[in-house]
């Protein structure tokens, strides 16, 4: 089975800092893969490189069998990659439903002229899009908040709205950037269940996360980064026991401060 996402020798430098170096890994279809590592390990950079928000210096990124390195974020979105952000990026002034509707952009075609004249085709398309979005909101338990102003929702709910927006893009790969950040324990448990349900529909998930409980709970595979390089990769239990992993998180025994 060909990997959905294949990264080879990825490298990126920012000024004097080598954020990511010689990084290679693959994400197979249908898995939930988590990327973990201490702060500064390069997780967010990796995400940005893969999803088109930053350009790699070296290496290749293959998505669905095609080389996509250098493509812009919106082009990758068009090819089936959807992502959420560490800092929630919802549009103020629009309702929950309208925010999620922006996710249907690539699946709808109404242009300037059709939009201005309210042509029948555009109205039909709009109705279908709305239904699709309401279905997804219901799937995430947000159906009755559809008309609320998105940025007025509680933090955990806003995260779900962003997730809904990513889901209606009908992606093949879902990138979640620290989805549990700012959530309390209950919300994190709910999130774990939600991600599991999403994955059960066949969607491949790659997530960056600090919350070890969530990561160990739902991931099929874990990739551990340290100083921009791969430290370990494998199943959760193996990672937990891996001495290299323990070392980069806890530091060398000798180096501990008195």
């Amino acid at each position: 089975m060909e990997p959905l996402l294949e990264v080879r020798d990825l490298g990126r430098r920012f000024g004097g800092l080598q954020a990511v170096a010689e990084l290679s890994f693959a994400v197979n279809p249908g898995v939930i893969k988590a990327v973990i590592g201490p702060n500064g390990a390069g997780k967010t950079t990796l995400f940005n490189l893969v999803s088109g928000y930053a350009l790699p210096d070296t290496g290749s990124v293959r998505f669905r069998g095609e080389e996509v390195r250098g493509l812009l974020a919106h082009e990758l979105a068009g090819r089936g990659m959807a992502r959420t952000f560490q800092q929630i990026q919802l549009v103020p002034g629009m309702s929950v439903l309208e925010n999620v509707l922006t996710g249907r952009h690539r699946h709808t075609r109404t242009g300037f002229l059709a939009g201005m004249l309210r042509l029948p085709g555009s109205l039909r398309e709009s109705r279908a899009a709305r239904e699709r979005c309401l279905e997804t909101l219901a799937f995430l338990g947000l159906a009755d908040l559809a008309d609320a102003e998105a940025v007025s929702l509680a933090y955990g709910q806003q995260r779900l709205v962003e997730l809904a927006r990513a889901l209606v893009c009908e992606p093949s790969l879902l990138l979640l950037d620290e989805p549990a950040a700012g959530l309390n324990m209950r919300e994190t448990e709910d999130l774990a269940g939600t991600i599991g349900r999403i994955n059960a529909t066949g969607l491949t998930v790659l997530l960056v996360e600090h919350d070890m409980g969530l990561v160990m709970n739902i991931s099929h595979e874990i990739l551990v980064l340290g100083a921009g390089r791969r430290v370990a990769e494998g199943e959760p239990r193996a990672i937990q026991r891996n001495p290299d992993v323990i070392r980069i998180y806890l530091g060398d025994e000798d180096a501990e401060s008195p």
Partner: protein
Amino acid sequence: MAVAGRGFGFTAGLAVAVVAIQIAASASHKVFYLTQLTMSAYAILVVLGLALLMGYAGQASMGQAGFFAIGGYVAAFLTTFNLAPRRDLLFVAFLERAHLLMTRPDGSGGSVTHVHPWAAALFALGFAAAVAWIVAGPVFRLRGHYLAMATLGFGIIVHRLFLGSPYFGGADGISDVPELVLLPGLAITGRAAARVSNYYAAWGLVLLTLWMLSNLIESRVGRALRAIHGSENAAAAVGIPIARFKTQVFVLAAALAALAGVLLTHFNSGIGPSEASVMKSVRYVAIVAVGGMANLRGALVMGTVLTFLSLRGSFGSFDDLVFGGILLAMMLFSPEGIVGGDLWRRLRSTFSLKNRGDDGTAA
């Protein structure tokens, strides 16, 4: 946000107001009010396009007067430049055979052969749109102050060009512009007998534009623009081609401004370089700001009031001061505008004990 029902109410109310004002003005023999309201309507066309660009797409433009002037001047030039002595040129002969030329008596007893007003108008629109399309590319690679200054610079260059060039009449501008016939019996012209019909034509166009732009905002494109404004990262993440949309909405706003320029030029039978001035651009921005940035109706109402008063001379020599002051006051106290509702919301929350401590209001 705005539901179709609420929108229809406003448009219907506006249509009623337009008719009522006309009847009142005609009945009280103050038909010259209609002339000033007609000119205000054309200013509103520019403002509506700018509100879409600035309020919804979030892109500042301090140079809309430039596009207005391009529309007006190109139309004026083409309909007054005498091609008769140049009939031997291949291009002129071609135009003649394509029935794109027109001959009429000029103001001083002779006759002038010029491009037909319709052809001139369409060319002016197309030309302004093309300029906008070309300018948009480099301009939108800039951000913030640089973007605003670039649009300001564009407006100034257009102003200087029209002011300095003898082809465009220099400081006097172009006059003796003929009428633009829309339908048999309805022409855009400054003739006193046509005041009422021109009033309805102008405001009909405003209503149509308001309807079309409101539809656009509620549609897929409108959501994409607002997404771009709200968060470019998020917009990119859902596949919205940001640069392309910015360009398209910029061109749309420019085309509206140019259309207003063309029509006002025919209405006034001429145009002068002051239409391209920086103060004009600032006025358009001030009106959008006071109307509430992302608020077409607010911009329409406030724009009409302010422009009408300004045209009547109600502000006297304080005209620019009024617009500058309004701009300042709006930006300082209520960036969402008066009609936008944020001011009311904030006033209410100031007096309510429930919402102490929320500070999402400034900026």
